[in-house]
């Protein structure tokens, strides 16, 4: 089959002779992929910033598809079902799954206890091949996958595997109360969804920061919010204080993560030399611009070692910091309904449909923000939809 194949930092290609995935566990299913996105999280892998990313892996944690084969213990799916597959691999039985912390499942990732299992996301999250391929093995098929509701557009469905729940979760973790001022760092797919979701919790004001003018234009219209370019602001934290009565925002959301720009020191130590687990510029700004007693919600992804953040300020200001990988399964029923009710319109953020065979160009377009790209979707030749 055809699959994306990682060869090293910023080097990927399509491998036409990738072996077909097989059922390796009674609760496995094999899914034929019909859509697979490239995510901001994939850029951390692409740039070689996630330790234990091995040459030859296939990435891809945002995909939908058709069930082709099921293991002997799979009861909730049948061959032919079209499914949304959450990016987390979760057993549904361990103490963390019991608490609906599916992103923290303890039975899916042997390599690290500090992270759950994720499709196509290095050996730091279990060493699974991902969905940027024609076929993929889906473990715990009774737990994660959800049958795509009648009539749902595949482009909406594929964004429910990660982007929509993660944006929503970012706002949810903020504990937004009616009238709160919410600042979102990052106008990528996740930040855009976070801004949009903030209103659902009753935000009074939503402000987004980024450096890409086309993304700021998009989020202004799509999420009906204010949006500013931090490149044209000498000190984003001071700017934020000034626009919020000098007190700061009630809630700050980091939807940027390790690839952040905006501070030379952070960039050199976090992205160029890997002396810290990614550049923590957005998180630094978030902690410094939140109001005392406020909440910082982190969905931006960082590596496993350490980061330079102003933790002293967080303490002195009495800030609550909350972060997690999204437990997609917990949020799916509610968010499917929001999409069906027209409250959320995920597919509007998809700017590119790219044949899986051109995956290397797809990564380049998304990573370098070429051609006004917001969200690219890969379509395998065998997708047929």
């Amino acid at each position: 089959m055809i699959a994306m194949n990682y060869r090293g930092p910023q080097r990927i290609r399509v491998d036409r002779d990738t072996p077909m995935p097989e059922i390796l566990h009674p609760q496995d299913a094999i899914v034929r992929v019909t859509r697979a996105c490239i995510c901001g999280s994939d850029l951390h892998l692409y740039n070689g910033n996630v330790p234990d990313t091995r040459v030859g892996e296939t990435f891809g944690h945002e995909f939908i598809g058709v069930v082709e084969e099921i293991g002997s213990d799979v009861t909730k799916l049948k061959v032919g079902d079209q499914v949304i597959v959450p990016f987390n691999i979760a057993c549904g039985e361990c103490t963390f799954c019991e608490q609906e912390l599916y992103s923290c499942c303890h039975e899916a990732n042997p390599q690290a206890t500090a992270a759950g299992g994720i499709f196509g996301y290095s050996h730091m999250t279990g060493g699974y091949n991902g969905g940027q391929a024609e076929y993929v093995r889906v473990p715990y098929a009774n737990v994660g996958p959800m049958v795509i509701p009648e009539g749902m557009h595949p482009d909406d469905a594929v964004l429910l595997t990660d982007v929509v729940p993660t944006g929503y979760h970012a706002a949810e973790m903020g504990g937004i109360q009616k009238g709160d001022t919410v600042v979102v760092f990052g106008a990528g797919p996740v930040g855009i969804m976070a801004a949009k979701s903030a209103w659902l919790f009753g935000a009074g004001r939503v402000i987004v920061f980024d450096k890409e003018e086309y993304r700021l234009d998009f989020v202004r219209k799509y999420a009906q919010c204010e949006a500013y370019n931090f490149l044209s602001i000498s000190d984003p934290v001071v700017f934020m204080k000034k626009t919020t009565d000098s007190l700061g925002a009630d809630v700050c959301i980091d939807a940027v993560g390790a690839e952040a720009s905006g501070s030379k020191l952070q960039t050199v130590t976090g992205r160029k030399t890997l002396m810290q687990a990614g550049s923590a510029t957005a998180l630094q700004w978030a902690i410094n611009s939140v109001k005392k007693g406020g909440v910082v919600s982190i969905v931006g992804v960082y590596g496993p070692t350490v980061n330079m953040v102003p933790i002293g300020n967080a303490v002195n200001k009495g800030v609550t910091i909350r972060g997690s990988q999204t437990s997609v399964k917990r949020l799916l029923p509610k968010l499917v309904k929001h999409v069906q009710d027209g409250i959320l319109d995920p597919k509007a953020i998809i700017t590119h449909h790219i044949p899986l065979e051109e995956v290397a160009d797809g990564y380049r377009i998304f990573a370098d923000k070429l051609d006004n790209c917001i969200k690219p979707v890969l379509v395998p030749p065998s997708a047929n939809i």
Partner: protein
Amino acid sequence: MENKAKDYSHIKGWGIDADPKNDPTYPMRKRENEDHEGYSWDRPPQQPVDIEVLHSIERPNVTAVFGTSRPPRGLSGKIRRFAFRYGEGSFAHWLPLVMADRVDVVEGILDDLRKGHLPNIWAERGMGAEWKYNRKGLLQRMAVTTALTAAVIVLLKRD
């Protein structure tokens, strides 16, 4: 800020998920009593461990399922095995892994060559897209790289 007077009717779904009880100072823990009993759940059946799986020393076992994309091999594999002797909080775990990743890249190229495949780095880096959408930037970068390389060569040749 005074927000009460504001009208949000232009925003679809405004406030529908508002939840005054969502108090972030107590994160989403929903523990029942039995959740305090530690490693006590009924484990799913074990996926046969018929490849080498490195597992964190912070857990007693291999998880019930695991990925099989790339078992450790070669020199990078040796380094990875060494790294997994240390806990997840330790630099002795992560730094060797980063090093192993880089060694793996070289091994990947050697492997390609052995199979008679010359990696097309231009295509692998997606430079076709850069050429199509950002030709000016790409040419500028190439010019800078060429100039720097030339300068280095000149410097090295001086004495």
